């Protein structure tokens, strides 16, 4: 079974087509990156896959469940870390994680166990009792990803997880994301080519709501006829704009 499958998935906002007949297949356990300039349709695609936006037409399935007909099932198997660090600012790191545990209906023992696991996994012991609003950008991102993992999702969506982070915080977060590889399917959107190169099994480049290129790094380089993801990205996006 595929982790994600979309068939002619389309999202229109009045005159704007944000996602245009998107056909996409992501295998289980893959770390799949969606690249594209602003407005390419990456976030809208993720929103539809998390049941946060309704498709205008076409179909999206996550782990075989329809994002339209089986919303409850899809919501119970996905986790999302949105672009902004969506955390409760006056709650501590531990309280934020406990809150998410309760939202997923865990009993007290499992709440404590799962919270402890994630604090340990992300090395957040020293900030566990600090309020979220006092944390640095890097810690907030880690907390945001930990909150997305609380419900033990089978598919994790990371929407620009390292946006605005300094280079050290970004590298640290990459290590955390890499440590999750293979344990669940991860779909990542990013503007950082280096990030996609470093982390992804496969990459899709979106432009105008469509996929302009899809494959491993070497396949994309081959398709663009240039070396390096950044050069390939520019060649593909500019080529697609000229068409």
């Amino acid at each position, binding site marked *: 079974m595929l982790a994600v499958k979309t068939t002619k998935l389309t999202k229109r906002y009045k005159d704007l087509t944000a996602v245009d007949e998107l056909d996409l297949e992501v295998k289980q356990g893959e770390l799949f990156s969606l690249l594209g300039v602003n407005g390419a349709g990456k976030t809208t695609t993720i929103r539809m896959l998390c049941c946060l936006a309704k498709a205008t037409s076409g179909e999206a399935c996550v782990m075989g469940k329809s994002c339209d007909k089986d919303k409850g099932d899809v919501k119970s198997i996905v986790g999302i870390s*949105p672009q902004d660090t969506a955390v409760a600012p006056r709650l501590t790191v531990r309280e934020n994680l406990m809150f998410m545990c309760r939202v997923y209906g865990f009993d007290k023992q499992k709440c404590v166990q799962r919270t402890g696991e994630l604090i340990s996994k992300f090395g957040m012991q020293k900030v566990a009792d600090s309020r979220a609003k006092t944390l640095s950008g890097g810690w907030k991102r880690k907390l945001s990803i930990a909150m997305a993992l609380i419900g033990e999702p089978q598919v994790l969506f990371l929407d620009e997880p390292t946006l605005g982070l300094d280079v050290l915080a970004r590298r640290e977060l990459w290590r955390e994301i890499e440590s999750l590889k293979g344990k669940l399917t991860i779909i990542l959107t990013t503007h950082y080519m280096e990030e996609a190169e470093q982390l992804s099994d496969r990459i899709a480049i979106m432009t105008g709501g469509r996929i302009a290129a899809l494959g491993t790094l070497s396949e994309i380089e081959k398709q663009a006829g240039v070396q390096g993801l950044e050069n390939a990205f520019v060649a593909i996006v500019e080529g697609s704009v000229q068409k």
Partner: protein
Amino acid sequence: MNRIFAFTRRNIIELLRDPLGYIFCLGFPLIMLIIMTLVDQSIPKEAVTVFHIENLAPGVAVFGQMFVMLFTALNVSTDRSGTFLMRLYATPMTAADLTAGYIIPMLIIAEIQTVITFAAAFVISVIIGSTLSIGGMILCMLTLIPSALMFIGIGLIFGVLLNEKTAPGLCSVVISIGSFFGGIWFDAQRTGGVMLTICKCTPFFYCTRSARSAMALSFTGESFVLPLLIVVMCAAFMIALGCLSFSKKMRADLG
């Protein structure tokens, strides 16, 4: 039920850790209670009865509830402006879980605020030698539950329709209008004419009237039953409209 409890708990903690909540929801009403008692002590006893502690305490309690409206609006609009609600939309939480999780903590805060206001009023009444009736205070606190729900409903509507910058502004307008036409700082009942007609067209007048009647243990149809009935109906309407607005906004966000 667990999800409602989880969200209620989160909202209570967030509110209790906001220093502005203490200043506006507790500090300001208590300061007004003290200032108006001082005013009452400085003028002839028979001049203005509204500043006597037995009339002032219910009025200030209604005034305090208006700040609960402000904080409901701020809480909802702030969650909406970030992506925190979006994260919750992607979990099994429903619109009903979220609205209940906003209403219940604010009702708890409103009740705590009312108890503290009456406790302070009781201490003041002992100091000035005009002891308040304990039974009257308890009945007044119960009478104030529907008005608390009404203000929470209005706050929920503002929080859904406005952003975190405009919601407090509009709430301030409602607080000014409400405290004026509610007859908190003057006896609206004695004004008559157009003024009394305008006051009677707002629900705030009935909140103060029913609360003051409960405090005075006066349960006549005109002074207590009818005003309380109007407040209950307004509370039911505002809460229903608030829940409907939230649910509609959630559907639009997920559209």
